[in-house]
């Protein structure tokens, strides 16, 4: 019996063959870059590894900032990587429309760059939380969410200690008014298992988007829910990667 390794996963996935190149950045302390590369390949795109010291993005069509603890999170989560050479280029190109997805530590980096508003703080419980997390997709119009429908409920893994999203009331009201709360933790009656808000995020915010919809950040990990055999046993996270692929192919 043979198992396909990540390195040999073909570039043709559910959406068919594609020349779409999606960059995945590795900082010192990044943990989920390989899983993210694998998710990109499973969706049918080419995964391009990018290194934090490189200013050149190798002509990728989109960028994912994966989870982990970049530079050890020693100052604040994501604070040091924000000043890495690769991020200088990412910030510049994201402002010009390059699709960027930040997952967990990647989300923290995006708030530190101010590409996304607000900030991430230590979980209210002070505990590291690791579990399957139910989310509601609030905005299915971003570059990374078109394969979902607004209101759809998905389950993906979550693992963080600095996952408490905060912003001032004015910013929160603005995000709500403009439909920029992209994902919320499900805290309704159907989550009697206690899988509600895991970290004290204001207004149960799990993820947000910028005004243009090309930059998205979220704390839970869709890249860990792309194959039925592992993770949640579901493939609820694959939609992020198929969404961006379709958008880029149809562009």
């Amino acid at each position, binding site marked *: 019996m043979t198992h396909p390794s990540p390195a040999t996963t073909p570039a043709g996935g559910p959406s068919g063959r594609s020349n779409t190149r999606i960059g995945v950045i590795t900082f010192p302390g990044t943990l989920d870059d390989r899983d993210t590369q694998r998710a990109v390949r499973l969706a049918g795109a080419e995964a391009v590894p990018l290194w934090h010291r490189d200013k050149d993005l190798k002509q990728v069509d989109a960028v994912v900032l994966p989870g982990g603890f970049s530079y050890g999170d020693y*100052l*604040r989560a994501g*604070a040091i990587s924000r*000043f890495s050479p690769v991020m200088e280029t990412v910030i510049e190109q994201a402002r010009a429309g390059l699709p960027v997805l930040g997952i967990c530590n990647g989300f923290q980096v995006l*708030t*530190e760059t101010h590409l996304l*508003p*607000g*900030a991430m*703080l*230590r*979980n*209210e*419980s*002070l505990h590291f939380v690791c579990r399957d997390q139910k989310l509601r997709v609030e905005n299915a119009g971003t570059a990374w969410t078109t394969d979902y429908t607004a209101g759809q409920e998905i389950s993906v893994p979550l693992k963080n200690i600095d996952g*408490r999203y*905060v*912003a*001032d009331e004015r910013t929160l009201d603005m995000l709500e008014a403009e439909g920029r709360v992209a994902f919320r933790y499900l805290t309704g009656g159907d989550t009697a298992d206690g899988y509600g808000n895991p970290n*004290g995020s204001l207004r149960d915010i799990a993820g947000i988007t910028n005004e243009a919809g090309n930059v998205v950040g979220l704390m839970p990990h869709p890249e860990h829910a792309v194959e039925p055999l592992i993770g949640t046993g579901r493939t609820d996270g694959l939609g992020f990667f198929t969404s961006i692929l379709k958008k880029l192919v149809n562009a």
Partner: protein
Amino acid sequence: MARVVVDVMLKPEILDPQGQAVQRALPRLGFEGIRDVRQGKRFELEVEGPVDDAALARIHEMAETFLANTVIEDFTVHVEDRAGS
């Protein structure tokens, strides 16, 4: 060589569960009468050369762009030990 201290604190309106955890532990340890605790960060910078207005302005800029995240934190800068003084 002079020492400049940058103190960084969460803004008053931001929930500080670390400070709260410390505050809750105090009565257990026999320390009564502390109504609130907030936890911050202190950076001690050993500065080469004179700490003049230009050097302080650079340190202020450093604190604002890097040492503190001004979305959630306030900071203060003060010279603790001016060389030769």
